[in-house]
C-alpha cells in the first residue's frame, strides 16, 4: 500500500455513500408508505424489513470473514486479515441488531421477549463466537500468530450459519419458517409488495455494509501505515 492510498478518500466512496443514503430513503418510503399493513400482526410486522436485512448482513459479513480467513491462511497476506477483521466487527454490529429487533418484534406477537428455541439460541451462539473473535484480536499481541488463531475461529464460527438457517426446519420452533429462500422457490413465502419492499431494504443494508467496510478497512490500513513508519524510524536510529 502506498502512503497516498491510506490518506486519500476516493471520489467513488462519496458516490457509494450518496447512493446508499438514497436507497435507505427509498427503503424507508417503501416500508412506511408503500407496503400494506399485515392483517394479523398489524404495523409491528414492519420490523421484519429491518430484522431480516440485519440478519442477512450479519450472515454475509461472517461469510466474508470465513472466505478471507481461508485466503489469509493460504496466501499469508495481511490484506485478507484486514478484510476478515473489518467484516467481523460489522457482522457483530448487525447480529446485535438482529438480537435486539427480534425480541422487540416477539414481545407483542409471542407475548415473550425471548424463547430458547433452536434459531434464537443458535443466533445468540453465533454472536458470542464472533464477540470472542473480536476479543481474541483485541487482547493478544498483533502479529501473524494472532491473525492465524483469529482466522481459525473465523472459519469455525461460520459453520453455525447453516445450522441457524435449517434449525426451524429440523425442529419445531417459535421462530417462523424461512420466507425468502423456501422449498417452493425464492420469495414464494411472501406477498409481491412485501417481497419488493424486503428486496429494497436488503439492497439498502447491503450498500450500507460496503460503506462501513470501506471505512473500517481504511482505518486498519492507516494503523498499519503508522506502525510501519514508526518501525522504520526505530530501526533507522
Amino acid at each position: 500500500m502506498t502512503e497516498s492510498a491510506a490518506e486519500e478518500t476516493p471520489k467513488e466512496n462519496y458516490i457509494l455513500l450518496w447512493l446508499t443514503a438514497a436507497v435507505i430513503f427509498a427503503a424507508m418510503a417503501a416500508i412506511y408508505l408503500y407496503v400494506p399493513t399485515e392483517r394479523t400482526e398489524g404495523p409491528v410486522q414492519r420490523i421484519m424489513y429491518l430484522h431480516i436485512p440485519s440478519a442477512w448482513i450479519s450472515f454475509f459479513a461472517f461469510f466474508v470473514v470465513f472466505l478471507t480467513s481461508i485466503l489469509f491462511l493460504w496466501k499469508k497476506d495481511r490484506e485478507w486479515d484486514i478484510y476478515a477483521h473489518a467484516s467481523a466487527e460489522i457482522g457483530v454490529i448487525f447480529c446485535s441488531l438482529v438480537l435486539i429487533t427480534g425480541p422487540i418484534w416477539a414481545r407483542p406477537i409471542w407475548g415473550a421477549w425471548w424463547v430458547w428455541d433452536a434459531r434464537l439460541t443458535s443466533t445468540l451462539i453465533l454472536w458470542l463466537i464472533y464477540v470472542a473473535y473480536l476479543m481474541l484480536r483485541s487482547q493478544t499481541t498483533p502479529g501473524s500468530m494472532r491473525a492465524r488463531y483469529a482466522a481459525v475461529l473465523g472459519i469455525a464460527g461460520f459453520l453455525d450459519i447453516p445450522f441457524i438457517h435449517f434449525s426451524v426446519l429440523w425442529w419445531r420452533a417459535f421462530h417462523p419458517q424461512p420466507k425468502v429462500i423456501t422449498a417452493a422457490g425464492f420469495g414464494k413465502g411472501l406477498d409481491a409488495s412485501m417481497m419488493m419492499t424486503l428486496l429494497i431494504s436488503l439492497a439498502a443494508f447491503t450498500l450500507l455494509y460496503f460503506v462501513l467496510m470501506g471505512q473500517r478497512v481504511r482505518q486498519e490500513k492507516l494503523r498499519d501505515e503508522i506502525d510501519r513508519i514508526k518501525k522504520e524510524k526505530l530501526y533507522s536510529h
Partner: protein
Amino acid sequence: MDNLGFLFAANAFVWAGVIYYLFTLKKRNLALERDLQLLKEVIEKEAKQ
C-alpha cells in the same frame, strides 16, 4: 393490534446503532490521519536538520 411503540423502538435501535458506529469509524479515521500527518512532519523536520 397496534403496538406502534415496538415499531418505533426497533427503528430507533437500528438507525441509532448504525449512525453511532459510522460516526465512531469516521472519528477514529480522522484521529489516525492526524497521527500519520504528525509523524510525517516529525520525520521531515528530522531529515532537514
